[in-house]
């Protein structure tokens, strides 16, 4: 097991390195730079600024300097746009907000998704199957910006139940967490239903029924573990997605999170800041995938840690 984990971590490090390298060069290939603006800098000024950020050096040297800085100093550098701020600080602050929204969304997604998925599976082809499944179809099809705006319109403009935007209070988290959560809940519900239906039709379940075991014992003891496997493998990327995927929601709900920073840094060609966001996202996805792999082994005895 420890060997497996070490091997996976090593693999993750290599993947991360590839991601950093590719993003670094792709970012530089994009036309325009951090200092091309609608008002041009005088040439002498531009030279000075470039010097400050090492942008006057050859690209490979810049790459070397960047790698050295992140590996040796754990320093993501100064932001090229927010000149008085370091990327470490910007990303750190933004991540705390995204984390809170992501956690809330995860709870919403799991509660709603699992409950409606189980209900549907246990009431196969009945109303309690059709109803949540049609709802989940709607949830999958509605884009987040539509859902967020709808919730804002109804809950904050028609009825003054919640703040229209901002996360000064806990109430401010309701709309962003629900918007993000509902979208993932829909997928979780469908996966739960599918997984459970498959398990419930297996021979060992029929045997258990024949033995006269109660419905709840069959569900909790014998079926749930296996039935939830598809959900677990989905949860890896989904959790990473919830922690990082609030781009639109963060804009609409005015949350100073990482998603907004990421989009804006890419548009502004803020090289250091967008690289910082890429690294955080990549690390998150790698970590969650690793966790999923480990949990998978716990749930499914057929999977061995090799």
């Amino acid at each position: 097991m420890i060997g497996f984990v070490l091997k996976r971590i090593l693999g993750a490090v290599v993947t991360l390195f590839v991601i950093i390298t590719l993003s670094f060069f792709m970012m530089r290939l994009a036309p325009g730079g951090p200092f091309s603006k609608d008002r041009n800098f005088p040439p002498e000024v531009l030279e000075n600024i470039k010097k400050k950020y090492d942008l006057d050096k050859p690209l490979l040297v810049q790459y070397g300097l960047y790698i050295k800085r992140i590996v040796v100093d754990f320093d993501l550098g100064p932001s090229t746009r927010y000149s008085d701020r370091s990327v470490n600080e910007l990303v750190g602050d933004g991540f705390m907000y995204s984390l809170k929204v992501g956690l809330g969304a995860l709870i919403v997604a799991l509660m709603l998704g699992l409950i409606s998925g189980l209900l549907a599976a246990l009431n196969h082809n009945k109303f309690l199957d059709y109803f949540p499944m049609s709802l989940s179809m709607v949830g999958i099809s509605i884009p987040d910006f539509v859902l967020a705006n709808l919730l804002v319109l109804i809950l904050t403009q028609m009825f003054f139940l919640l703040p229209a935007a901002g996360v000064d209070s806990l109430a401010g988290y309701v709309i962003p967490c629900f918007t993000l959560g509902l979208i993932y809940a829909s997928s979780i519900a469908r996966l739960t239903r599918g997984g459970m239906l498959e398990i419930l039709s297996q021979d060992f379940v029929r045997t258990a029924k024949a033995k006269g075991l109660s419905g709840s014992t069959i569900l909790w003891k014998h079926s749930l573990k296996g039935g939830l496997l598809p959900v677990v493998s989905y949860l890896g990327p989904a959790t990473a997605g919830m922690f990082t995927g609030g781009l639109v929601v963060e804009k609409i709900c005015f949350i100073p999170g990482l998603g907004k920073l990421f989009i804006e840094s890419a548009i502004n060609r803020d090289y250091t800041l967008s690289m910082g966001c890429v690294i955080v996202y990549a690390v998150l996805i790698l970590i969650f995938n690793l966790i999923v792999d480990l949990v998978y082994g716990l749930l499914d005895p057929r999977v061995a840690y090799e």
Partner: protein
Amino acid sequence: MQSPPDEFVFNNSAEPETLDPHRLSGSYDSNITNQIFEGLMSRGADWATVVPGQAETYSVSADGKTYTFRLRPQLKWSDGSPLTAKDFEYSFLRLMDPATASTYAYWFTDSVEGGQAFAKNPTTENRANVKVRAIDDRTLSITLSKPVPYFLQLVAETPAFPVKREVVEKFKDAWIRPENIVSNGPFRLAEWKVNDRIVMEKNPHYFAAQKVKLNRAVALPISDKQTAVNLFRQGRLDWSGPQGAPGSLVAAYRSDPQFRVHPAFITYFYRLNVTRPPLNDVRVRQALTLAINRQELVERVTRGGELATSVYVPPKVGDSKSVETLVGIDHKQNVARAKQLLAEAGFPNGKGFPAMELLYNSDETHKRVALAIQQMWKKELGVDIRLFNQEWKVYLQKQQMLDFSVSRAGWAGDYPDAATFLEIFLSDSGNNQTGWKNAEYDRLFAAANKQMNVKARNEMMAQAESILLREAPIIPLFFYTNFGFLRPEVLGFEPNLIDRPFLRYISKQGG
């Protein structure tokens, strides 16, 4: 959830890049910096007028080259330490020092004696030769190499704001953070959380602190316009910000008494690349200019109360001049003239007109305008144009490299004078981006800037602009508007051309 009567909460539309007066460039930055710093001269609530700021009085020498500013007695920084003419001397030199890398340093390096040499080569000797001198604690003298008729306007803007040497040198780039900053304006920076909020508090050391009515102001960087409107509707914002509503809804909001629309100091125009045939032919450029029905454009397409224009420089407060333009009042006549010009250029009814692209940065309004103009050119001239949109930075680069035929553009004035618009079409301007060069235009502009007589100067500026319009390297379309929701209990927030809130003049009923 409404803010207390001594607090003003507003949307600043975006996160400032920096609040350093010498490094900033955007209006999001200067809208904050203007509250926490003040220059020798300052602004009236209408923005266009210059009023005494940290300087009590000033005098100008007969040749218009030497300005002597007399500071108010006992000026203080926000930490209570004395602010003297030495601080201003240091600040002007910091601005002009190429190491500071200021976008706006050229305002002063171009005109202050010794400025250019220092900007090119910042040696100790060149530094000592820059003619900005603190004569005593309360007297600052600035000597220019040529008269600048709008010099006081420049002195009232952010690049001329003072910064405290000890703080800047001690904290380097981080000096502007709330825990380090020392400033001299009516407010001081209390809190700055990126993408979240900027909180300002009244500065008790400001010389006119007793006249400042607000005790606190909060600026929120809300980029989503609808979100700003939603927050305003909930009473959480006192002002929904500059351009504080979705552009497409302005027409619908106009009847709301809390919504205001007023002229902006921004021109919307198209650039023509005069290095590319057939746009190298002035007749083609004129034909394209004449064939556009601007009134229809603002009434049917943009619908935000914009002012249709065939001239380039927006009208300012107290400004009167006559600029010749090709475009007459009667659209039918304009079109007939356009057809004739196009035929003379060898493209009767658009026959044989080469394929051309219209470049714009991806945006719904720009797209609608481009579509309308594409149709107008097709219908009136038989000219076919392909629309081509690009993401912001790509668009900027294409424009800079003259890699376009027609390109959408906008220009916002930095100070209330025609020069801020006309200077970008000088032959050597980096913002020209049309390939158009005209010696007579350059000459007139330079001559106007030597002219201290306001009327004669305006006349020359108008002549220069007439050349620009006749030569038509650009097609002016309309002047933008400023718009946003403002709570009725807010007093003293005069609509101004750049929609900058001047917190020192603002108060709230009951406050």
